């Protein structure tokens, strides 16, 4: 692999890495939202029962 090929590959990999990192961060956020929603549903249920 020539030097130019290495740099070009690196540039495309940087873009891929940033997009994948974003997907991972977003998945964590979705998991948090799901957890919070479950907690609120639990609170609402407890309120109805009480």
């Amino acid at each position, binding site marked *: 692999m020539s030097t*130019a090929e290495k*740099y070009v590959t690196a540039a495309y990999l940087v*873009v891929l890495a940033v997009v994948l990192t974003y997907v991972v961060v977003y998945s964590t956020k979705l998991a948090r939202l799901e957890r919070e929603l479950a907690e609120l549903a639990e609170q609402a249920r407890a309120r109805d029962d009480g």
Partner: protein
Amino acid sequence: MSTWSRNSALSASALLLLVGGIALAFYWAPEDADQGFSQKIFYIHVPVALTAYAFFAWGAWKALRHLWTRGERYDLESYTAIHMGVIFGLLTLATGSIWAKISWGIWWSWGQRQLVLFLILFLFYCAYFMLRFSTDVGPARANLSAVYAVFGIVLLPVSFLAIRLAEGFLHPVLFERDGPQMTGEMFVAFCVCLAGVLALAAALYANELTGKRIDARLRELREALA
């Protein structure tokens, strides 16, 4: 069309266009006579940079709509656009720096006005988050953020035109008054890559906005239940 269907359609289009565009760039478009293989970075660097500009402009437009109508949705849309613009701005700096290393032998040049102006634009929008998160949630934060985002629009043409107006520049100019300075195959590959990056940007924006809206509604629900 439901949010899920729209976001899925955007993601699928982005994947198809990006794979197609990169394949065209590497296997169909000829190598540049001057720069050789390293010019292939152009097919990702320029679309990413144009997308960053588009996001900053979109964020300013939504901020203006917020100031005009005081609609809460515009504040969230402006914030999401700037959030995405900063991610694409970071990618522009990273890919540009790699291209600079191959072409000019340096990662960065402080003497190049167009590079420094893009960095200023990027840092200006990074500071948007500091301003936004140093203020409590509410109309005051939304108004302050909107005013800041609208001010940023001044930097956009300066940064964009600096690439054309800078004297003794190293940064190449490929789109001139008499058309793009590249072969037809290169231009087609570039257009497909640009469409792919824009579709990816739209998919990320739509997903991020959906997440932020759910987050805001959960906060309202928490307050109502407290």
